[in-house]
């Protein structure tokens, strides 16, 4: 069941947020990766002691919708997102001084 869930959806880290990209209905379903993580806690810990889940949830809660959305409209972002430019343009770097909102970009 969980594999099917992955095959039709965006797999989003090991958080439990998942989005249905067909209907854009933002379904919150348990994704495959969360299931695998829960089934293999020892392996997850062995791979890395870092778990960005908590931090990501904090950032999401703190973020104001729409703020930073200008980024998504830039030519640079769209080219990067759509794979135009191939491997040469695979890395997108957003830089700015502390506090300008890099973490909360939308």
């Amino acid at each position, binding site marked *: 069941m969980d594999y099917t869930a*992955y095959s039709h959806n965006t797999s989003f880290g090991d958080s439990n947020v998942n989005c249905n990209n067909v209907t854009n209905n933002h379904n919150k379903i348990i994704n495959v990766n969360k299931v695998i993580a829960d089934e293999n806690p020892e392996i997850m810990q062995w791979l890395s002691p870092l778990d960005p889940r908590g931090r990501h949830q904090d950032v999401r809660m703190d973020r104001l919708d729409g703020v930073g959305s200008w980024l998504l409209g830039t030519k640079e972002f769209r080219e990067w997102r759509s794979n135009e430019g191939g491997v040469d343009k695979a890395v997108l770097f957003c830089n700015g001084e*502390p506090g300008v909102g890099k973490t909360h970009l939308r």
Partner: protein
Amino acid sequence: MIDDLCDEPCEEDIAIAMLYCDFRDQQKQTATNIIGAILRQLLVRGEVLESVQSAFQKAKTEVGGRGLRLPDMVRMLKRAIAALPQVFICIDALDECLPKNLLELLGSIKDILGESPRMRIFVTGRPQVEAEITRFFTTSVTIPISPKAHDIERYLEKKLEMDTEQYAMSDRLRADILRVIPERISGMCVGVLVPSSCMILY
């Protein structure tokens, strides 16, 4: 940005892995652990998961051999990415990594990208890490981030709306806050914080 990749209707499935670097966690945020944290997020059922499980079982039996080395981790991550249609990796605040860890991490990502040309990497950081990034990725694309007046106003309006001490607020004070703060911040932007090449929409 991560949520937006999720929300956007798209023709193919995507997988996203992210990591927030933090100077308070520098000792733990080695290149090996960061690559491992990305791998944790990209494991799906199948051959790759089975190979990780068997490597783990093997490591358990070896005396003192439990820890994974960076090349092992990179190899496993390459296999995990190869099993997925499209992978996005987002790493926040690269400047908060120790320099040694940052160089190892960027070198590893370059190595992985060489075998996974469809992978997309989104990184943020202070301007000073740009030199390290371009050292490994000469054709990387940079977007300078600066506070936009519209974003600041929106943020302030929301904060004022949620102010728990409304009695201390008057219309005049509110108007002053909404006028002065965006002005000051945008002034900082043009004059001090960012070079003229920055995209500022005022």
